[in-house]
């Protein structure tokens, strides 16, 4: 869990709502007492947790899933890192809130990023050179849409994420 810690120049007072901010930093723990800085939950607003989770993939061993998958490829992880930062920027520019993906890998070492919204799901498979996606809104394979991206830009961002985040139940295309 990530929090934004706001420190001020006076002793922290829970009832004091207009403190002068001296500095701000990201911390990874909850406050342990009432004498801690004001902490604001930031999980849906920063990319830090996503980048940390991607970095952690480098520590996964072969057969991490007990079903014989190879460990995630470093080249795929690095591409996923670059891609995630571009995606984060596009999300910010479009005025939407960043939703961290669920991060795992597939059996041949590609990085798997997944998002869900109501019944919809979006899965992105990131290799060292390209990104393949699957959009789905139910269990029927015939209704799922797939494609390949060489890169992410404002147009492809809209195609994928505006589709995901609308409440329209159909229209996977």
């Amino acid at each position, binding site marked *: 869990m990530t929090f934004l810690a706001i420190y001020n120049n006076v002793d922290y007072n829970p009832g004091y709502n207009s403190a002068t901010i001296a500095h701000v930093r990201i911390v990874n723990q909850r406050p342990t007492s009432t004498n801690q800085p004001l902490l604001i939950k930031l999980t849906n607003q920063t990319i830090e947790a996503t980048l940390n989770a991607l970095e952690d993939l480098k520590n996964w061993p072969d057969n991490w*899933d007990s*079903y014989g*998958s190879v460990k995630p490829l470093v080249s795929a992880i690095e591409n996923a890192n670059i891609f995630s930062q571009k995606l984060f920027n596009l999300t910010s520019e479009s005025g939407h809130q960043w939703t961290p993906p669920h991060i795992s890998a597939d059996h041949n070492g590609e990085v798997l990023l997944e998002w869900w919204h109501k019944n919809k799901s979006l899965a992105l498979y990131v290799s060292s050179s390209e990104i393949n996606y699957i959009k789905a809104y139910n269990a*029927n394979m015939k209704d799922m849409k*797939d494609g390949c991206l060489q890169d992410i830009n404002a147009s492809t961002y809209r195609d994928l994420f505006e589709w995901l985040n609308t409440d329209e139940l159909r229209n996977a295309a």
Partner: protein
Amino acid sequence: MSLETQPDFVADDEILYRSIPVKTGYDYSSDGQLNFSSSAFQDRYQKPSVDRAKLCNNDPKHTQQKPTDGVIKLIVGEIREEIVEVESTPLRQYALDVIPDPIEASSLQKANLAHALIISNPQYHNDTGFRKAQRRLAYIATQNNPSWLIPPQE
């Protein structure tokens, strides 16, 4: 019991167990909804392993790969239900199936007479076919498992 006496067909109403890796195989939506990841159904041979409940005394513990893993159930008929038409002329279709795959004891592994495989018939012709099958299994798992048979230990 010898392998020859095992049933050679998995019935539509059979329950299957699948072990789900802790954290990586699932996630929770902001409303608390449990969603299964495609990675919950990985397999390097594109034939995810499951156990047939009735052949392991209906004990999901039998299927758990690691002490921290969760275990869920799937129903065979739901996996088989969809037939996908890939081409209309000539007609080319494929569907998922569940086939028995009992494992005999060896120096590498224990016997598992309940073991079965989720396959495509005919075989997937590319990664995308298998990935859609994984997505299908994840949706079915999400529908069937509002809670775990064995919860993962995070």
